[in-house]
């Protein structure tokens, strides 16, 4: 008789140097009704197998550490409750489209480089001193970029995007959300510089508007908008650059 409070987790395990390829390992967790997937992993680590590796920190869906594939879909483990998943075994895998370093831990360095490549800071229109006080920014001007500033860098969108799966150099949805966060900011004047950073094949032009990135985003950032809006911008820039005087 299966215990209703118990739940089976099938976790993809991989240890470099030991395993030739990842393989699933099975664990049963107690008292599963009240646990998030993250808490289930923690209880496995604390009581069954301390070698299970995964990232986590805030456990409140804001730090972006705990992205993984849960039943095949990219999710934050901390805000995915076992009781909300369909009955039966739960599969847990590292995020798709990223190299697996160990178990559920994937490589993040490439993503960080992408963020750094798009000038992710205010390039001021009119520099101000502290004594001059804050810039004015109306709620409407804030709303123009606010959703893009909510990105927690969880990379779920990258795990969902098949074009990133095909081309790991594709700048990708998350970094584009950040780019649009600054391009859309009324205090900023760096738009052209950033457009120049993404006009290549690995920039916006790898996106085919699949749109799944926005569907899986846990923070409603709408990265697909950021990418495709900039496809429009970059396309016009392709022709308008001849009119620009430099």
């Amino acid at each position, binding site marked *: 008789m299966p215990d209703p409070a118990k739940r089976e987790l099938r976790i993809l395990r991989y240890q470099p140097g030991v395993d030739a390829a990842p393989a699933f390992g099975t664990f049963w967790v107690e008292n599963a009704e009240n646990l998030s997937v993250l808490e289930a992993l923690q209880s496995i680590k604390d009581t069954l197998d301390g070698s299970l590796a995964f990232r986590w920190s805030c456990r409140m869906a804001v730090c972006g550490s705990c992205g993984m594939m849960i039943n095949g879909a990219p999710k934050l483990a901390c805000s995915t409750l076992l009781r909300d998943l369909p009955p039966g075994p739960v599969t847990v895998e590292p995020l798709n489209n990223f*190299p697996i370093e160990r178990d559920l831990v994937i490589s993040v360095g490439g993503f960080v480089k992408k963020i750094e490549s798009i000038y992710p800071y205010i390039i001021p229109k009119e520099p101000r001193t502290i004594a001059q006080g804050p810039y004015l920014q109306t709620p409407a001007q804030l*709303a*123009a970029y606010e959703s893009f500033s909510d990105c927690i860098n969880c990379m779920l969108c990258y795990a969902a995007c098949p074009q990133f799966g095909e081309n790991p150099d594709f700048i990708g949805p998350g970094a584009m959300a950040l780019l649009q966060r600054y391009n*859309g900011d009324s205090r900023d004047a760096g738009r052209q510089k950033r457009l120049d950073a993404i006009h290549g094949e690995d920039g916006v032009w790898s996106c085919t508007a*699949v*749109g799944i990135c926005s*569907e899986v985003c846990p923070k409603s950032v*709408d990265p697909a*908008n950021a990418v495709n*809006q900039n496809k429009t911008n970059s396309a016009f820039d392709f022709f308008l650059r001849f009119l620009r005087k430099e």
Partner: protein
Amino acid sequence: MNESRPYRRPQPGNWWAKPPYRAYTARELSGVAVAIYGGVLFAGLVSLARGPENWAGYVGFLKSPTSLALHVLLLAAVVYHVITWFQTLPKTMPKLIVNGEAVPAKKITGLATLLAGATSLALVLVVLGVTR
């Protein structure tokens, strides 16, 4: 000290045929229907340039059940194209801010789809009116 040896899991080659990407592939292929219809028109233009007899053959084809069936299929595919086109539209434009709040994508899609319905309807009515 071991070097880390990241393992790369390749994306399956048939991802495009599997959910959740299947809808995207269908959307893309619906765009091909647009080109096929363009091909039908192009064939008409060729016939027209070749003279009245050739044109008559073309018109004969248009009246054939094969052509009618083809056009019903094309119409269905293009309507799917219209719907998905406007679902994508809000992604390709800047956020619309009205009264300090971003207009939801659904609203933009809805309005644009209505507008497209109206333009198509208008064209049909104009043609019907002019040719009467």
